[in-house]
């Protein structure tokens, strides 16, 4: 264990001179600033005035126009919703609104009289989450993911480029020790990064008991995947661009996060999916899918460790010897 910790310390020192480490540290600051300053707390609702022509009903605040062309002109230039009465009924003219907004307009228009519709909120807390903070788990998840995925691979590639891998190959270090020392270091760094983003955006009032192991093991999974993948490369350029592609795939759960209606089954097999949604629960509360999260992450941890062991052993620390 002492040896592994010493390796972690020396790897951390190497990391301090690696440009990617500082790029990721800078990314952390940018993410915090984006959440705190750039993203709005509340998205602006779709607000449209109504213009009418030739309809019998009285609509509060609606502006009555003197021709169909005037209605169309108002819709075209002033983002209004137009209602034009005719022999076949009423035609709605709009500048390309969402179906949701249109339905609301039509409901209001068809309502015989204003009445209060009873509302029951099942998740009062999530209802109150400001938009910018709701994006925070995305940044937390992907900063931790990037840390393990990119930095682990970068250190490994440097070992190949400067030839130190040959010194490792004739040393008694085994694949397990190599993987554990690297994944331990990046898991700690990833957890610290995730915690920093969380503290500076959402604050301290979260479920740290869930958050910390989630960040730790989430980063570990991506460190192991990154190390396994990096063994296929001998130079930085090809590695970096293909890593970006893989990162793109791993960021697809963002779609489900921002558009909950879109959560196909295949999306749930992407390793970042359970981690992202578990971060959301850890940060904002709500009913966690504990069993699904634990099973998914445990499976990915085992798969990534086995893949990393096989590939690092065969393609990186290979030699005419047994483990």
């Amino acid at each position, binding site marked *: 264990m002492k*040896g592994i910790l010493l390796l972690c310390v*020396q790897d951390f020192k190497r990391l301090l*001179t690696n440009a990617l480490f500082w790029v990721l540290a800078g990314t952390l600051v940018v993410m915090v600033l984006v959440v705190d300053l750039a993203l709005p707390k509340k998205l602006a609702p779709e607000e449209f005035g109504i213009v009418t022509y030739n309809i019998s009903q009285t609509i509060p605040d609606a502006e009555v126009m003197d021709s169909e062309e005037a209605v169309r002109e108002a819709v075209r230039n002033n983002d209004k919703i137009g209602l034009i009465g005719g022999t076949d009924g009423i035609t709605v003219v709009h500048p390309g609104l969402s179906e949701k907004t249109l339905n609301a307009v039509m409901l209001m228009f068809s309502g015989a009289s204003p009445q209060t519709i009873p509302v029951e909120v099942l998740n009062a807390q999530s209802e109150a989450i400001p938009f910018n903070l709701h994006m925070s788990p995305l940044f937390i998840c992907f900063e931790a993911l990037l840390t393990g995925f990119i930095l682990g691979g970068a250190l490994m590639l440097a070992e190949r480029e400067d030839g130190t891998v040959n010194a490792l190959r004739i040393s008694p270090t085994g694949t397990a020790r190599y993987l554990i020392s690297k994944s331990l270091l990046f898991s700690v760094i990833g957890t610290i990064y995730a915690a920093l983003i969380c503290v500076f955006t959402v604050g301290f009032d979260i479920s740290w008991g869930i958050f910390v192991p989630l960040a730790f093991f989430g980063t570990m999974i991506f460190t192991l995947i990154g190390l396994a993948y990096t063994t296929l490369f001998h130079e930085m350029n090809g590695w970096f661009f293909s890593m970006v592609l893989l990162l793109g795939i791993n960021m697809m759960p963002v779609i489900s996060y921002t558009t909950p209606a879109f959560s196909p089954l295949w999306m749930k097999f992407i390793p970042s999916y359970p981690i992202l949604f578990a971060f959301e629960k850890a940060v904002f509360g709500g009913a966690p899918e504990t069993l699904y999260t634990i099973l998914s992450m445990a499976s990915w941890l085992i798969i990534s460790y086995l893949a990393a062991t096989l590939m690092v052993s065969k393609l990186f620390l290979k030699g*005419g*010897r*047994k483990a």
Partner: protein
Amino acid sequence: MIQVSHVYHDYEGKGKCAVSDISFQVESGKIFGFLGPSGAGKSTIQNIMTGLLPLQKGEISYEDQSVRNLKTRFFNQVGVSFEQPNLYSSLTGLENLRYYAALFSVPTQNPMELLELVGLRDDANKRVINYSKGMKQRLTFARALINKPKYLFLDEPTGGLDPKTAVNIRDLILEQRKRGAAIFLTTHSMELADALCDTVAFLYGGVIAANDSPDALKLRFGKREIRVLYREGDTEKEKFFPMDDKAGMAEFLKTADVIKLHSQEATLEEIFLRVTGKELTA
């Protein structure tokens, strides 16, 4: 002891071997010099011996343990100083040794003491990227000693070093021999091999052209005659006597104004030229 028996290696698998039928042994407490020009196959043999290349044909064993079956923990007993320094350039010299020491599961030497031995104590906290080539070479050598290896592989350990530092490194190699390490030394330097090695092998074209102790090789390939340099009037002259013509030489020495006597011993360089027909160049 390291036993190498009938080793062949074919990089491309097309029947053209980089090394063929290589056999020798390196005993504990002895230095075995592997001499040959670039491309002769020295690194190939060292890489097979250390497990960096797979053993295709033949056998290499460490105390009867085949290189094919070496376990990771075996490498606690191995030290390798590479010709091309391969160090963590972003770490300091001291950090490099600490990092490497952490890989071993046996007691290791104090990194600072090792740096002192190779003359790098004052530069211990300087990042390796700022080291000269010679400093990197010394650090690589120090790294090879960190685990007090039982089997030590040295590839051009004095290459690029100034004469004073080279002598220091030579002394350290001799200390390792005294400690009982089996040392495999790869070099172009006949002078270094002559000064250090108990046995040398000349590798040329992938085969061993000669393999014996330096003294035995000199005896076998030397001229076995004495050169007498003497003065006759104002001029210096020389005369050669066969080693076994003691009477003739004694008679001559009685009257001659002798300046110098030399045994006509061949150097390793000359022997290499005689054995292979080629000069040993880097």
